[in-house]
């Protein structure tokens, strides 16, 4: 159990800026290509080497997605990163339990901020010797000048009060001496690791929302996935960072394609537990299966409409795998596709709810199509050859992540297409087979399945393809879906 409360600081009232504060001079620009060694050259040579270095960057760009302004902006990664100093918050007593929980808290906070994609964490070796615990103790000059060159500073302390862990935390703009703290908040947790992790995630969320243009952080979200680590494939859930992995089903059958309801209280998935592949709706509040109609044939790939009122799914009840929609209470069944081929993997436009993308092999190979949610106005989204599969619609409705493969080479990689313009960005580059991408609710992160470690495992990355992290390590794990 944990909770948090805003606290007042010496500076009243608490002023929360809605945009990032003073920005540093943008690193890069035209001077980016001119290095000291280049300055010794003639202007002609300098120009040539500049052209060549740009050429080389394009040719050997090790950071996919960079340089695509439209894309970086669309996934909320287009802003200049804030230089943020995050010294370890000190425990206020030598109580062994508090010391240990504070270590956990500090590590989780650091990891969350590092993976946020919106801040540059200042290396701890550059910090001034004196670590402040209150805004009054901040040496603004020491933190804002070399070598730290920080813009913002997280400070505070942890104490043990009435058998609870209480963390008091501030976010301070160190370039504006005397300015009020951007964040001043007290976080209270029970004295256990999970609660300490939770309040660290909560503080990270608050910081990310302040420094990341108001987009809420994802540090308290969860990921549902399929794992066969206990034998049969079952539905599992973990925290967004891979911690706290726990099974949801125990059917000793085949369960797959888990999908979070928009309120995060339910999971829809495919289960073979009754013999036939059926759509199951499982309540995470009551830990029970909820009533939902069964149909003959294959029933799989459920998808919640953004208002939670409808579920689109694939069923072969009519003799062929087609897309249907149905009210979540089981009424109002409606067939949306009519093509005597495979039609599967529907996903709603999460922004409008009035379009559905899905996979069909009506052209000969699996490809991604978009239609209105009543089945009209059908169009093909990906016009390349190969196999295009597993669409995931970005939260802002602008992009579709998908996996695209070439049979001849056996490769599968994750791509994102700008739905309006057709521009494509490749996010993974042949490190194993990379499939089933799914967006995080912040639109900045994507979870996917990859075999790059030698096994089929769940990975997450920034939505520009950077900073891939392995989240699962036991058995085979696949088909992840991010909570809302």
């Amino acid at each position, binding site marked *: 159990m944990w909770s948090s409360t805003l606290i007042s600081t010496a500076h009243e009232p608490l002023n929360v800026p809605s945009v990032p504060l003073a920005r540093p001079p943008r*690193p890069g620009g035209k001077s*980016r*290509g*001119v*290095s000291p*060694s*280049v300055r010794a050259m003639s202007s002609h040579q300098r120009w040539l*080497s*500049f052209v*060549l*270095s740009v*050429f*080389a*960057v*394009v*040719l*050997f760009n090790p950071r996919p997605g960079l340089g695509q302004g439209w894309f970086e902006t669309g996934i909320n990664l287009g802003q200049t990163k804030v230089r943020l100093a995050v010294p370890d918050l000190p425990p206020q007593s030598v109580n062994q339990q508090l010391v240990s929980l504070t270590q956990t808290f500090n590590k989780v906070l650091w990891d969350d901020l590092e993976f946020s994609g919106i801040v*540059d964490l200042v290396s701890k070796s550059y910090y001034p010797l004196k670590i402040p615990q209150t805004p009054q103790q901040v040496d603004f000059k020491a933190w804002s000048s070399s070598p730290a060159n920080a813009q913002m500073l997280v400070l505070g302390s942890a104490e043990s009060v009435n058998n609870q862990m209480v963390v008091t935390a501030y976010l301070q703009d160190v370039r504006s001496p005397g300015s009020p703290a951007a964040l001043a908040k007290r976080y209270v947790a029970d004295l256990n690791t999970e609660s300490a992790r939770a309040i660290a995630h909560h503080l990270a969320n608050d910081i990310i929302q302040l420094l990341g243009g108001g987009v809420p952080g994802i540090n308290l979200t969860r990921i549902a996935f399929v794992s066969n680590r206990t034998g049969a494939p079952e539905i599992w859930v973990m925290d967004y960072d891979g911690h706290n992995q726990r099974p949801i089903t125990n059917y000793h059958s*085949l369960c*797959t*394609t888990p999908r979070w309801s928009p309120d995060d209280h339910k999971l829809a998935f495919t289960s*073979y537990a*009754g*013999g*036939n*592949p059926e759509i199951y709706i499982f309540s995470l509040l009551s830990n029970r299966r909820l009533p939902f109609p069964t149909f003959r044939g*294959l029933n*799989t*790939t459920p998808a919640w409409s953004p208002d939670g009122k409808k579920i689109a799914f*694939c069923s*072969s009840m009519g*003799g*062929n*795998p087609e897309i249907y929609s149905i009210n979540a209470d089981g009424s109002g069944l409606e067939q949306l596709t009519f093509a005597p081929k*495979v039609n*599967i*993997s529907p996903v709603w436009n999460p922004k409008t709810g009035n379009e559905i993308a899905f*996979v069909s*092999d009506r052209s*000969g*190979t*699996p490809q991604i199509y978009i239609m209105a949610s009543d089945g009209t106005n059908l169009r093909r989204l990906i016009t*390349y*050859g190969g*196999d295009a*599969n*597993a669409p995931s619609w970005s939260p802002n409705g602008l992009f579709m992540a998908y*996996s*695209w*493969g070439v*049979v*001849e080479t*056996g490769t599968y990689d994750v*791509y994102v297409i700008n739905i309006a313009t057709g521009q*494509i960005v*490749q996010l993974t580059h042949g490190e194993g087979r990379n*499939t*089933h991408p799914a967006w995080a609710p912040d639109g900045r992160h994507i979870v996917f399945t990859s075999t790059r470690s030698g096994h089929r495992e769940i990975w997450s990355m920034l939505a520009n393809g950077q900073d891939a992290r392995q989240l699962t390590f036991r058995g085979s794990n*696949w*088909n992840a879906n991010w909570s809302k």
Partner: protein
Amino acid sequence: MQSHQRRLIILTAILGLTVLGTTSCHKKAVPPPATPPPPATAASPTGSLTAEPSTIQAGQSATLTWTSENATNLDLEPSVGKVQPQGSTTVSPQQSTTYTLTLKGPGGENTDEARVTVTTAPPAPTAEAAPPVTEEELFEQSVKDAFFDYNRANIRPDAQAALTEDAQFFKAHPSLNFTIEGHCDERGTEEYNLGLGQRRADAAKNFLVNLGVSASRISTISYGKDRPFCTEQTRACWQENRRAHFVFGSETH
């Protein structure tokens, strides 16, 4: 971060200069994600591989015959190896085997496949009275699976032959109910393969129904790529997994 970027720029500038110094600097474009293979200047190798008969009993042999054009290097696997541009050979596989002929030439690479299905030999007559054979044992001995091409659910000629024999068996055992499982190889994504497996199972069912087997006796279920028969990453293994598999009794409700 800044110094990191600067280091990258220096490195790439040096790299760029090296490229200029050692080549005539043809303009290279970044390959788009879906570039089709460049057109070959030489004619690409073609060929065909057939097995006669395509179904044998264990211990019998079949003849593999092949022809080719524009191929300089031919490899017939498994167990045969390098072969001449035209020819034939006999094989005696102990179990059903898909033979792959790989053709390489100046114009590229091509393959063709032929499958030899091996059925269990009828038990040799013995002096002792054989125990009565159950319908399920007969089913296991007689019913053949149907195999498919990648991304396809249409019944190809070898599957037509297998299913035609299966239909005769099912009509001779009219009280027997059975399930057709649709399976796929590991390429492609899990979800699409669930749909494709269903279409394969239903295609096999429809073929049998057209030959007079009652639809009410047949259940179908798709396992996509989730329950493979073979887990190696080879063409032969992938072919093993692209099938409609017959199971005695009804699996579904």
